[in-house]
């Protein structure tokens, strides 16, 4: 809870008309896949990117990640903004951060 989520610098964020955030992030390919592509296409593989569109709540949490706020502080701010129950905010924010972490979109520092 005291860890501070930090955004991956390779992630680019685009604000959509709806106010939500679209994240574009590079995805690493396995070396053998890259070798196959190189052999058959003859070209050096361009980095593959993926896009992830966050919903309103996800975008709100993403906006709170400034590298200085701890997870606990993010939960508190999120809960205050949407007048959510603290336990509910904690569960949804931690689940969301875990998902972002799995995709490599954020890291955590002490």
């Amino acid at each position, binding site marked *: *809870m005291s860890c501070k989520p930090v955004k991956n610098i390779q992630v680019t964020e685009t604000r959509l008309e709806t106010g939500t955030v679209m994240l574009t992030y590079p995805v690493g390919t396995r070396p053998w896949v890259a070798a196959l592509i190189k052999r058959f296409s003859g070209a050096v593989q361009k980095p593959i990117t993926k896009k992830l569109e966050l919903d*309103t*709540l996800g975008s709100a949490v993403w906006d709170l990640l400034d590298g200085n706020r701890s997870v606990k502080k993010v939960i508190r701010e999120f809960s205050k903004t*949407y*007048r*959510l*129950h*603290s*336990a*509910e*905010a904690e*569960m*949804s924010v931690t*689940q969301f951060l875990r998902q972002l972490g799995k995709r490599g979109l954020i890291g955590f520092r002490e």
Partner: protein
Amino acid sequence: MISKSGQSWKEVGWNGIRLSVPRSWEAGRVGERYILLEHDDFPALELKWNNIRGKFSTERHLKRLKSDYQKQQTGQVISTWMIPQDWHDILKSHDITGFQWEGNLFAGKGLILFCKDCRCATLLQFYERRDRGNDKFNSIHKEKILSSFQDHSPNGLNLWSVFDIRTILPQRFKLFRHSFSPGAFELTFDTGIYQVSLYRWSPASVILLESDLQGFAEKVFPFESCHPVSAFLDGFETIELEFSPPLSLWKKWRQKLGKKPIFKWARVWHISSANRILAVKAESDKPLDFELLKSICYEYGTI
């Protein structure tokens, strides 16, 4: 409710159990007959209870508890504990046995309570963080909690109050299903005649970005051929949906044979000040008691 010590308190009620706890204590886990209350992300109070049909033996329950802990291989050793006289006085209508245990991070003091009136056996244990110790303030808390403890209601009504929802329902409403997912809570009760469900969604401001309240109500309660009615009730924007059996006898029989509930009713309302949407839904194969349903809606709210 603020005590002399300045501590703010709240009531927790779940499946027949009712007690007052410090406001900062939050439900961490909730089961059908189980509740774990936490304080600062650490367990504070755990309750498990059940109705006993035959003879009740505290020794047997204590023995089972010891073997459960041994199976969990937590290294905790349970021993019997002499309960303070004050606690005996507070819980004089119960048979009480005390026990205690010590682990690496926590120690616990617990009670096995048996009420002869309602034949409910409750295992109640206070967790103590070993690095903080058990101060006098803490023991005052415990006495206050124990003096508010109820395992049966004197007026035939049960309080259901966990997280941020609160309602009072007749005892004949038996909990059938419950879920507390982030953003969506559901409690479904079975009365033998009806199935009544209470819902709570949040944050309403985000949910209602996609559609208005009527659109949301129709999405969550897709009753066939029903005409939603919108109104302002008790100051809240409200949508009511109702489905009654079709007039055609053939359709009526077909539905009866399919054992589908043929009477459905739901009320959905938006509490903008709390950023919540609440709903009550009832289903039955018999005509619904609308007066009862309206009183359920009246009692149901957010804290």
